[in-house]
């Protein structure tokens, strides 16, 4: 287990990444701060390397993490699209997004197609349709404050709103949807809870 952890650690520290800084290339000098952007946690999740599986274990499904940062859209509005896609197969998700009129739908479609490409190329996924969306989330991007001019010399401060979009694709067919909880089930649970109460601090 210790060796597996160490191997997992070493998996992300790949030396070729350290050759990126532009100090080695004197001509393309000026952009030192944003060299390939600071990697967030979601991007790093693609780097974990598991130890080889033993012959008896069931096959671990491939997981692909992809995201897009600083999309010019509101995170609340994007959330509705992310909620639409959650748990669908990638084909169904692309179909739904294609005929949705929201601005974020186009962006998420691009992200999903990119992720599919990456899955097939880098993550040894055999069939590009055999993916489903395990997680899809939105996050708040960097907001910028600007002045909005009103009449009579009044002004307001408006926020220019951006969001991030995160998606995790997993190989395999989508899991069957959970059956909705009926009132009867909830009542049964409640009665069970009442019955399992015990006396505290007694013999």
């Amino acid at each position, binding site marked *: 287990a210790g060796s597996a952890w160490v191997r997992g650690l070493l998996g992300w520290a790949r030396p070729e990444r350290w050759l990126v800084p532009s100090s080695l290339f004197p001509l393309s000098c000026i952009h030192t701060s944003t060299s390939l952007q600071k990697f967030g946690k979601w991007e790093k999740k693609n780097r974990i390397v598991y130890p080889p599986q033993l012959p008896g274990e069931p096959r671990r499904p491939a997981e692909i993490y992809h995201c897009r940062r600083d999309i010019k859209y509101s995170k*609340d509005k994007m959330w*509705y699209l992310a*909620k639409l896609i959650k748990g669908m197969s990638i084909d169904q998700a692309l*179909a739904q997004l*294609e*005929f949705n009129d929201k601005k974020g739908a186009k962006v998420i479609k691009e992200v999903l197609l990119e992720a599919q490409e990456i899955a097939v190329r880098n993550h040894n996924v055999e069939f590009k349709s055999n993916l489903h969306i395990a997680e899809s989330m939105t996050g708040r991007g960097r907001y910028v404050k600007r002045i909005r001019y009103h009449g009579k010399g009044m002004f307001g401060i408006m926020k220019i709103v951006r969001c991030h979009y995160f998606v995790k694709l997993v190989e395999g067919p989508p899991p069957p949807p959970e059956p909705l909880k009926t009132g009867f089930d909830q009542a049964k649970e409640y009665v069970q809870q009442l019955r399992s109460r015990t006396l505290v601090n007694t013999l």
Partner: protein
Amino acid sequence: LVVVFPPLPRLRTLLQRCWGRLERGLLQGFSGGQSPPWGPALAVQAPAFSPQPAEDTGESNEASSLLDSILWMAAPKKRRTIEVNRCRRRNPQKLIKVKTNIDLCPECGNLKQKHVLCGYCYAKVKAETRLIRMEIRKKEGGPLNAPTVETVVLYDGEKPTEKDEGKRIIERARKRPSWFVQN
């Protein structure tokens, strides 16, 4: 010894009558609206009324009514908690519904909605019609030169048939597309 004679009854009645008359006279004077000249004067003078203050009171009335109406305007009493906000934003009525009217186009295999033309096929047709229209424009050479006869589009290696006798012929230098059926 002092002997006080009570006033004689005739004197008393006379006095009473005189007093009554005085009082009646006073009352009459009072009903006129003016205080009696020897009545107690008001310590504080009432403010003198003039035409200007009438307008001020009018304005103050409007201002007060506006303020009153502001006081009666609807305003939230309490901050809506995030739980309440989430219940409103996430209830199924506000979520995006899953569309069930998406199919595959039998021609090109792209996705299309059932009641809408396939976007890819439509774009293809649009591009070809644009080229045909450019040819027509070249032939006509200006606006308002449209002929009064029909137009026929012929592609590579096609000859006009007997049906296309009097029609205007537009040549396109490419193979006939499969979706453009010749009559």
